[in-house]
Each structure stands twice: as structure tokens, then as C-alpha cells.
């Protein structure tokens, strides 16, 4: 195989700069790691493996701030997915991953393969995927037909993949803001369940053991996907479509069943198993070898290929989907092959573990790569970014005081904002009930899933608070975690741990690196106080279009445990006459709120500090009340505040609420972190308030189907049927708009 350029030509012409490898890195590799010039194939491997997407070279220094240990943590970050003990020898396995760049250029396939990739991360651990969540951030759709198309296709992509796999979608979020106009976000989260004894790791070791390739053929799709995800969008690069992969959920379903059959019935045949994700074959094999402290020799002629004439570079970097690497103990190759043959999947021995710590590739009768394994993985030069506090944060705008003349009109407008409006347009396209364990479908605070054969359930949610992170990265980071925890607690579950997708702009911009650093500090602090360690996650930087960065948008995916699913708490009031309590305090700070966005068209101002310890204490008290049967329903306050939360609780019921809320009416639209509306049967009121002392009685559940709230200066009195119509029709109507 002729290399496209000689090592000298590469040094001279620097093609690696186009693959996002810097001259400094190239020199370091040549002079310090190899003591020679790398060849064309090797430079290609370095450029992918040293990309941010694979190496976390920029973000690693700040990721170390995350608390990753806890009583229940079995496996923290670094493997396919995090693993958390849920008692009885069972574990919940979960991770989220971003697929922002592919989804921006080709929404359907980008979203579909985003789901496919995260599923493989979970089942490569030996867990059965039981739920999918999706967090989507779009630009404004009102005047942008392309954005409407992207929304429709993204949703179809997420739906088609998960529906075909037969894995229910349990929720997520959809958020709209102009900052995502040129760079949408698609973060997919997968939750799996397993018997802890089947835990697998991405590990290759044992001289003479075989490296086996299973699943789909390798084609030219997705080459340089990892580096593609590690650079900004711009008009010059509009032809990056080839870097987007194409998904085949049917193939993945077969791969899932075959892998689980292998792991659960014949664990003794294998050493480790890993998904081929970003940077395909090179990344999976090099990481497995590094993990196992082993060397590896592969013959690329043995790799199943979809098309002829592929170069070593293309074979190694292809991001064709639905493929896995397995390290198989010598002598069991035929046994493993028999399983995959039965599922009509490719399965081939492509190499073996060797006794030197090297990564050697043969192709067409030649050695095309011979590197120390760790030069591709742990030797990557960390590059902590330069930091500078963003100018906008030095002098935050003066506190904004909303003028609310007609609270009813404001509420009606808020409910029609796509971020707040009914998401049935989306969730109706996702099968949320397959596998018949779904206790709470999307549309509530969290999705809740029964653990079959037990009385346990797990709750899960995905939350972002990007406007708050933009206004104050550290407090905003804290809020993101608090918001997720509030959703989990509202469903009656004890928060266990989180996964994250850290979505930011170009980290070479010191202001953006500062945002990353400080929001991670905020997330880390909140995770410590709320006792929800970070067990997995992903970083997506370079979310920019023509130099315009998105809001810093860390997504928090949280999982909680309900020990007795009879204590799952619904979001909607259950009984006429129940008392309604506010747990938490309304605020007069509207910085970053949906109300501010609605009335001023932008967000500004400084955020108030959060008292995390107090929030944690309140949530624990509320949880205890829920677990002892004192709570009839519960909903957390988020975008749009109390008025919106109260409306959401009443939609689809025949009930109304009659409340008395002290303070000005504007505060009904404030968005305090970690606050809840709770309904409680009258006879349990005394026990409830004893358990949750700061709960404040606001009123009761009525049968009028009206929302009536009296405040110090105004009365809000709305017919719920009118509000529900506005809320339900907003997104379908926007999707049909002609503008």
C-alpha cells in the first residue's frame, strides 16, 4: 500500500493542520514520543486520537474537579458507561453522549446514530439498554423553515432508531433559543440494567488472545468524525456531510442480542468488549490495549469491508456504525463466531495481543503503523486552555424589574413559547412503553421505569439550564444539577448519580474556556452537596457557527432510585380538596427567566447565590414525605415559574387550583431553583408539614377547572381549557407556519 505522502512530505506540507493536529503536537509526537517522523497513516491516527473528542486534552484538567466516587458507584468515568448499584446484585448503567455536529449538518442520521452510539456504550458493559432520553436544543423555529426541518428530522432520527431497537424513550427536554440557530445540540442518554456479576470492561490483555471484530462492515462513512466534532463550523466547510455516519438499527438490534448472549452465557470466553465509536477501530483497539496494559497487532486485510480499495487510514478511522471489538481468549474464537454467525453478523479475528507494548498494523503485506500504544492514548498532551472572565460578566446589567399588567395574558404567552409548550408533537413519535415497564411516560418531571421482577423503579431525566449558565457559569452549573435533582425528587426517587454532556463553544477562546471551567466548578460543587457523583459523560466543544458560540450548555442526566414503586409520585393532582403547598421560595430576581426572554427578547443580570445545603435538606425532607405516603402529587418549578407549573399540573385533569400567594404577581413567573408545588390530602397535612417544615400552604385543589391565584396586587383567573388549547397547539402550529 502506497502512502499518500512520505513522512518528509508530511513534515514539509503539514496536512495534519487540516485534521486539527497542531504543529506543536506534531513536533512533540515526532521528537518526544517516536523519535522519528510518523508516516501518513500514523499521522491520521494521531490526529483522530489526539482530537478533543477522543482525548479530552482540553477539558481533562477541569473534568478532574468532578466528584466521581460514592457508596453506590461501581464504575465511574472512563469506561463505556457509569455503573451504579441499585441493591440486590443489580446495577443501573448509564451515559449520555453528544452528537451535535452530525445532527447540525444531517439531522436525521446525526440523531439516529447519536442514539445508536450511546446504546452500544451501555450494552458493551454487559447491560441491557432499557431507556433512551434525548436533550435537544434548537434555534428559534418561528421564522426559520430550515430549523423546523431540522427539528422534524432530528425527532424522526431519534424515534426511528429507538423504536426499531425496541427501547422506550423515557423523556428528555427540548429547548429553543437563537444561540442554537447555527449549531443545534442533540444529546442522547441511555439507561441500562444489569446483574452486577456480568459487568464487562473495555480491556484487552493476555498475550496470544485474539482481537475480534463483530457487526457491520467498515465503509468510508464518518471518516474523521472525531476531528469534525472538534472544530468549528464555518461557511468554508459546508461540505462536511461525508463525516456523518448512517445508522442501521436492525443491525444494532442483532448486535445487542448477540453481545448480551455472549456476555451473559459465556463470559469466560472473553477478556473485554468495546464499542467502535468516535475514531472507530483505532480508538476502540488502542483504548482496550491501554486499559489492559497490552500491545496489539492487527491485520487490516481481515477487517470486513463494504467497499474496495480502502486505505489503512480509512479503515482505521471509519466511523461506520454498529460495530464492536472483542478481546477473545485464545481457543474460543470459533465459539464466539458461532454466536455472531447465528445472528448473521460479521465476525472476524483481525489480530492478537502481543508481548511488547506496541500498536502494529499490517495492510497489504506491509507494516503501516508501529507505535507505542500509549502514544495514541495516555501520552496525549494536555492543553489546559487560557482563561479569561468573559467581559459580559464583569459588569452584569442592572436588576431587571418586570412590569406585569395582565398576568393572564403573560401566562398565555408563556405557554405558547415552544420551550414551555406541549411536546406531544415529539413524544408521540417515540415508543415509550415497549418492554412494558414504563410507570411514568415522557411529559412528567422524570420518566419512571419498573425494574422487572422487583418492587424497585428507576427515575431518570435530562436537564440543561443554559441561560443561567450563560449569565453565571458557576451558579448556572449548580442550577443545572439542582434542576435535575428536583425532577428526580418530584417523582419520588432518591437521586443516585449523574452523567453529563458538556456542550460549549471553541475552547481556544479564553472566555469560553473560563465558562467551561467555572460551570464545571458549579456542577462539581452541587454534585458533592447533593451526593450525586459523576459516573460518565462526554464533552462537545467547538459548538460555533461562523464565530458565534452557543450558550454554555452543560446537560445533566440524572438517575434516581425508588425502592417501592407504589411510592412513585404523579405530577398531577389526584383528589379534589387536597391542599396545595409551595416547597421553596419565590424570588424577585428574574435574570435568565423565560419571562425576561419573553418581555425583553434577551436575558441579562446577575444570579443569586444558591444555598445548596438548604436545597439538599429540603429535598431530603420532601423525599421522606413521599416515601411515607404523605404526598399525592408533586411538580418542580422550572421555566415559566409557579404559574406555568400549576398549569402543567392541571392539564388533562378536570381539576382546578385556588391559591393565595403572598407577594407581587410577577413572582408567579420567577424561576427559583429546587422549588416544588405539592398536593397533600387534608388528613395528612399535619404530618406533611411536620416532615417538611418550610412547606407553605397556598390553597387547594378544586373542581372548577380554573387556575385562580390571588396575590398582593392582582388576581390571576384563567380557564384551564383555554390555557390547554394554547399550550397544545403552539408547536404543531409553529411547525406548520409558512414564514
Amino acid at each position, binding site marked *: 500500500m502506497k502512502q499518500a505522502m512520505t513522512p518528509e512530505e508530511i513534515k514539509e506540507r503539514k496536512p495534519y493542520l487540516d485534521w486539527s493536529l497542531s504543529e506543536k503536537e506534531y513536533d512533540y509526537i515526532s521528537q518526544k514520543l517516536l523519535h522519528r517522523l510518523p508516516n501518513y497513516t500514523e499521522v491520521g491516527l494521531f490526529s483522530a486520537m489526539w482530537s478533543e473528542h477522543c482525548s479530552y486534552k482540553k477539558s481533562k484538567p477541569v473534568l478532574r474537579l468532578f466528584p466521581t466516587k460514592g457508596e453506590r458507584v461501581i464504575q465511574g468515568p472512563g469506561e463505556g458507561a457509569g455503573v451504579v448499584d441499585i441493591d440486590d446484585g443489580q446495577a443501573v448503567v448509564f451515559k449520555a453522549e453528544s452528537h451535535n455536529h452530525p445532527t447540525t449538518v444531517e439531522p436525521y442520521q446525526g440523531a439516529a446514530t447519536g442514539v445508536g452510539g450511546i446504546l452500544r456504550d451501555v450494552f458493551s458493559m454487559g447491560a441491557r439498554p432499557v431507556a433512551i432520553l434525548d436533550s435537544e436544543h434548537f434555534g428559534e423555529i418561528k421564522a426559520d423553515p430550515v430549523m423546523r426541518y431540522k427539528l422534524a428530522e432530528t425527532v*424522526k432520527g431519534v*424515534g*426511528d432508531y429507538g*423504536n*426499531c*431497537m*425496541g427501547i422506550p424513550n423515557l423523556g428528555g427536554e427540548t429547548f429553543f433559543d437563537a444561540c442554537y440557530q447555527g449549531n443545534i445540540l442533540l444529546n442522547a442518554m441511555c439507561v441500562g440494567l444489569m446483574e452486577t456479576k456480568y459487568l464487562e470492561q473495555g480491556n484487552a490483555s493476555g498475550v496470544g488472545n485474539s482481537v475480534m471484530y463483530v457487526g457491520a462492515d467498515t465503509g468510508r462513512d464518518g471518516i474523521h468524525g472525531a476531528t469534525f466534532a472538534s472544530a468549528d463550523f464555518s461557511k468554508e466547510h459546508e461540505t462536511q456531510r461525508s463525516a456523518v455516519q448512517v445508522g*442501521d*438499527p*436492525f*443491525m444494532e*438490534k*442483532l448486535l445487542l442480542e448477540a453481545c448480551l448472549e455472549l456476555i451473559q452465557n459465556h463470559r469466560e470466553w472473553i477478556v473485554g468488549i468495546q464499542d467502535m465509536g468516535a475514531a472507530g477501530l483505532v480508538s476502540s483497539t488502542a483504548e482496550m490495549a491501554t486499559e489492559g496494559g497490552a500491545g496489539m497487532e492487527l491485520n487490516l486485510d481481515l477487517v470486513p469491508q463494504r467497499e474496495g480499495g480502502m486505505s489503512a487510514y480509512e479503515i482505521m478511522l471509519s466511523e461506520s456504525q454498529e460495530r464492536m471489538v472483542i478481546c477473545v481468549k485464545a481457543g474460543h474464537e470459533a465459539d464466539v463466531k458461532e454466536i455472531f454467525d447465528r*445472528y*448473521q453478523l460479521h465476525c472476524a479475528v483481525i489480530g492478537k495481543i502481543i508481548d511488547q507494548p506496541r500498536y502494529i498494523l499490517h495492510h497489504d503485506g506491509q507494516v503501516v503503523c508501529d507505535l507505542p500504544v500509549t502514544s495514541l492514548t495516555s501520552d496525549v498532551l494536555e492543553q489546559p486552555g487560557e482563561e479569561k472572565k468573559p467581559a459580559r460578566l464583569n459588569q452584569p446589567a442592572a436588576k431587571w424589574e418586570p412590569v406585569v399588567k395582565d398576568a393572564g395574558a403573560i401566562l398565555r404567552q408563556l405557554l405558547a413559547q415552544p420551550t414551555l409548550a406541549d411536546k406531544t408533537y415529539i*413524544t*408521540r*413519535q*417515540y*415508543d*415509550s*412503553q*415497549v*418492554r*412494558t*415497564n*414504563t*410507570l411514568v411516560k415522557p411529559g412528567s418531571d422524570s420518566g419512571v421505569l*419498573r425494574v*422487572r421482577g422487583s418492587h424497585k423503579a428507576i427515575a431518570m431525566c435530562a436537564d440543561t439550564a443554559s441561560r443561567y449558565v450563560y449569565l453565571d457559569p458557576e451558579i448556572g452549573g449548580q442550577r443545572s444539577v439542582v434542576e435535575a435533582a428536583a425532577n428526580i425528587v418530584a417523582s419520588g426517587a432518591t437521586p443516585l448519580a449523574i452523567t453529563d454532556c458538556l456542550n460549549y463553544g471553541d475552547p481556544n477562546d479564553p472566555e469560553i474556556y473560563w465558562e467551561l471551567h467555572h460551570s464545571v466548578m458549579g456542577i462539581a460543587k452541587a454534585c458533592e452537596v447533593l451526593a450525586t457523583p459523576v459516573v460518565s459523560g462526554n464533552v462537545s466543544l467547538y459548538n460555533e457557527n461562523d464565530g458565534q458560540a452557543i450558550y454554555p450548555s452543560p446537560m445533566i442526566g440524572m438517575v434516581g432510585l425508588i425502592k417501592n*414503586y407504589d411510592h412513585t409520585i404523579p405530577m398531577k393532582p389526584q383528589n379534589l380538596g387536597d391542599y396545595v403547598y409551595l416547597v421553596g421560595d419565590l424570588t424577585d430576581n428574574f435574570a435568565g427567566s423565560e419571562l425576561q426572554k419573553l418581555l425583553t427578547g434577551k436575558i441579562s443580570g446577575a444570579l443569586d447565590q444558591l444555598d445548596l445545603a438548604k436545597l439538599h435538606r429540603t429535598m431530603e425532607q420532601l423525599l421522606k414525605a413521599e416515601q411515607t405516603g404523605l404526598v399525592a402529587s408533586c411538580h418542580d418549578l422550572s421555566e415559566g415559574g409557579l404559574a406555568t407549573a400549576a398549569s402543567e399540573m392541571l392539564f388533562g385533569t378536570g381539576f382546578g387550583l385556588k391559591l393565595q400567594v403572598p407577594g407581587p404577581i410577577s413572582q408567579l413567573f420567577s424561576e427559583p431553583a429546587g422549588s416544588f408545588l405539592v398536593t397533600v390530602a387534608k388528613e395528612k397535612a399535619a404530618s406533611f408539614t411536620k416532615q417538611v417544615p418550610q412547606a407553605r400552604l397556598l390553597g387547594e385543589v378544586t373542581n372548577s377547572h380554573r387556575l385562580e391565584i390571588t396575590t398582593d396586587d392582582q388576581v390571576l383567573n384563567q380557564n384551564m381549557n383555554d390555557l390547554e388549547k394554547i399550550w397544545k397547539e403552539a408547536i404543531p402550529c409553529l411547525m406548520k407556519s409558512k414564514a
Partner: protein
Amino acid sequence: MKFAVIVFPGSNCDIDMYEALHTVLGVEVDYVSYRAESLAGYDAVMLPGGFSYGDYLRAGAIARFAPIIPAVKKMAAAGKLVLGVCNGFQILTEIGLLPGALKQNESQQFVAETSTLLVANDQTPFTHKYQVNQRLAIPIAHGEGCYYADQTLLDELERKQQIVFRYVNNPNGSVNDIAGICNEEGNVLGMMPHPERAVEAILGSADGLGLFQSMVEKQVQA
């Protein structure tokens, strides 16, 4: 009474069907691979939902050639009960055990929600525990669920009372609001809604139980 749940490559509601029968109904049930060629020893065959062969080409079109299909046809001919749900219904039309065809939903979108069904015929082995015009809350989840039959066939289906379930709010554009039909003999039922997802109140509805109880009791009487 012993049930077989056929597992095709890409079936994914096989577990739901199995659990409904095994755990909730407490009857004997086995998974049977699409590679098997006999269904001897079984009293009823269930073709579950999912995406057999990825729904490539057309839903159910490739499953038609699976090794198990002749045995399924034999069971139907012998008067045993055959139930196809969702993808199973699509397969039943593809293999000619039920007339008509299932097209892409009118909306061109996958639709997952709880539908309200009307029992149109309570005289079948699948529905004798229900009353005619009884309303049932049963989940649907499909992209190709728009039942089509030409006018001649429709008239015949209506005349022979082969329409077993109808939608109250047609979610997919099916002719005459058809959600499920049976063959002339009444021992083969195909339906897009998922009764196996409606057997536990805690999951939202137990209205599908009657269908399985009907099947079990029919066999007991025989």
C-alpha cells in the same frame, strides 16, 4: 393451553407478549425461533410486534420467507388460534392469512399513544369476554398501521363481521377506522394496537386482559 411467541430477527415486543402470558396470565408459553419448522405441541401462536428484518423493503415482507411461516399457516389451517400484533399483523397480511394491507400512517409519522378501541365483534375466540361496542384503552406504537382494503373487500369484511376492533379516533388513516380484523373462520386475528401492553393497571391499562382471557377460555371449553 400452551402458547408460542415467535421471535424473528428484529422482534422487540416478544418479551412483552411473553410476560403478559407468563407473568400476568400465568399460562404456559415459550419463545420459538423463526428458524424452527414445527409448532407441534402448541395451541396458539403469537406473532409479536417489533421490526422484523428492520421493516426493510416493507413491514413484514421479509419475515414472510422465514422458516417458521409454513408451520404458522398449518396452525391456522388446523383451526388453532393465531394472533398477530402490530408487526405480527403486518406479517399476517404479507403471508396471506389475513386480507388487505398496512400502509404508512397518513401523517407520515410514527405514532405512539393510548388509543381508544371499540369492540366491533364480541363473538370471536379473542373477544368473547368483551361486549360489543365496549371501549378499551390500548396503546398503539407504529409507523405503518394504516389498514387498507378496496371497497369490495371492505364490504365483504363488514358483511362477514371480520372487523374485530375499530378506533374511536382514527390515528393512522385506516379505512373504516379498522384497528383489527380476523379471518373468515375467526381463528386468526391481526391488530395494530398492543393488548399485551394493557394487562397491568400500574402501567396505565388492563383492558387488554380480556383478549388473552378469551383465548385461554376458548381452549378450555374446547
